């Protein structure tokens, strides 16, 4: 018998625990020729803001050892165009669609939640983007602001709510607890880690934005540690992400306490990664005679 891979994130019944992370899968359309979207647990679309955003000047990305830095700066079409032009395409598929929302103020997050109410399956509140001047990270680095954003969005919508937290904090547990107290349904861990690269010939940073967010396998141990820490202090589901490249990486997050995982940078390297991970998790469960994925979640032996 095939093992049961289904997971429940705040009432979202996913057919498997493998999602694709915001900013790494566009609006789904870009990958539809290469990946059967119906097979994915869920898609988290590129961060959406109220007004369209141009993004940062180039260069926006640079490769680093076992990773990359990005400073895209939340380039996106804006919520109206997303609803009119991008969402209908995704809606042809049997896939859970989660909108990642980013605001400069609490009011903007609330407005975004209202506009998307009833149109998507869930919201991921982005309080961790390191590449914008206002909003983003400043909310995710302050437990009181985290509480304020989450509780106000909570009042504005009944959609399942996920908070995407930043690793650029002293104690991730404090922020996670604030989000839970404010009524969050699930937590995405982690967004990128702030970093930079300098060109020694010009003595200039490679990224026009000077700093960017580090992602890829280089950050996996940090992400895993944070999932482990947070899993021990909150009861809401955690979506583990940060450098997942294969099924073994994903299983590590699940054992550490993640209910689901999200594949990010690996989509750029091999668009098939998420599908391979679904298969790999299934194989692992069969091999270890585990009937339900949930039996494995948080089964870390210390």
């Amino acid at each position, binding site marked *: 018998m095939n093992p049961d891979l289904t997971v429940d994130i705040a009432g979202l019944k996913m057919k498997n625990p493998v999602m694709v992370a915001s900013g790494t899968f566009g609006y789904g359309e*870009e990958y539809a020729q290469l990946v059967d979207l119906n097979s994915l647990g869920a898609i988290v679309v590129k961060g959406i803001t109220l007004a369209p955003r141009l993004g940062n*000047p*180039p*260069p926006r*990305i640079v490769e680093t050892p*076992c990773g990359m830095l990005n400073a895209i700066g939340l380039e996106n079409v804006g919520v109206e165009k997303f609803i009119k032009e991008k969402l209908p395409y995704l809606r042809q598929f049997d896939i859970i669609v989660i909108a990642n929302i980013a605001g400069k103020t609490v009011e903007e997050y609330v407005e975004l939640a209202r506009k998307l109410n009833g149109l998507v399956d869930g919201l991921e509140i982005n309080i961790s983007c390191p590449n914008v001047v206002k909003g983003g990270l400043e909310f995710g680095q302050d437990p009181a602001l985290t509480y304020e954003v989450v509780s106000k969005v909570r009042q504005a919508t009944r959609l399942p709510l996920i908070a995407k937290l930043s690793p650029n904090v002293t104690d991730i547990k404090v922020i996670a607890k604030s989000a839970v107290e404010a009524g969050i349904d699930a937590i995405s861990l982690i967004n990128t880690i702030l970093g930079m690269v300098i060109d020694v010939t010009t003595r200039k940073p490679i990224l026009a934005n000077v700093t960017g967010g580090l992602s890829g396998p280089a950050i996996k141990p940090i992400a895993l540690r944070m999932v482990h820490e947070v899993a021990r202090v909150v009861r809401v589901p955690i979506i583990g992400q940060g450098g997942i490249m294969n099924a073994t990486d994903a299983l590590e997050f699940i054992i550490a306490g993640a209910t689901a995982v999200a594949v990010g940078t690996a989509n*750029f390297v*091999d*668009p098939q990664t998420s599908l391979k991970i679904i298969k790999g998790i299934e194989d692992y469960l069969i091999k270890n005679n585990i009937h339900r994925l949930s039996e494995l979640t948080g089964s870390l032996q210390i």
Partner: protein
Amino acid sequence: MLQTKIKILANKKIAPEYYKMALESPEIVRTSTPGQFLHIRVSNNSEPLLRRPFGIHSIKDTGEFEILYRVVGKGTALLSKKKAEEELDVLGPLGNGFKFPVAGNETMVLIGGGAGIAPLFFLAQKAHHLRQIIVLIGGKTKDQVLCEEEFKKLGIEVRIATEDGSYGHKGLVTDLLNALLHTSLSIFACGPLPMQKRISIFSSEHNLSCQVSLESRMACGIGACLGCAIKVKGESTTYKRVCIEGPVFEAKEIMWE
């Protein structure tokens, strides 16, 4: 666009730092147009992490094609070590290629520098029956002048300029362009950024149509990550993605830094 494993047929050094790799994929040969690129995974592990974009250099009716590349870093160094019979994970063909043939009876002038000559040979293969073509090859030194014989075998006139005068005209490719201004021209350029910029400015000064094939730091290659943005002209600042709106652009579109 497809993602597929492709067998390497040969991988040869053709000049100091420059290599040509032959691969076999009837599907890619059948579906590619000149100027499109392939996004190739050069490592099976996470170092280097990202794919590398390469323009298609040439095709054969037998289903073989070539890429031409310069070893500039870790990724291309790894690629240069690959042997025949090994397989590469290839995504493509990607992006928009050159628009050709051009209107009227314009002569197509193909201008390449270094590995920038790569996609222009594929263009010449497809266009030399349709229009008169002249190829201008530029480089700092003779070592950067590639593919002269291959173009000549197609019956195409080749003119050369090197900055140090070690081969052909001493100076810049734009000097060679000056000598062609009496005919009506349409320019197709690929090469180092300063050269492309120079050619673009020259084209706009002389009101010539000019298409450039650009490079950029790139992650996904299919328009999702928004990493390869370049600035284009408009009433206000706007960006286009090299991978999907490009890599070939009308030169007049580009905001050169």
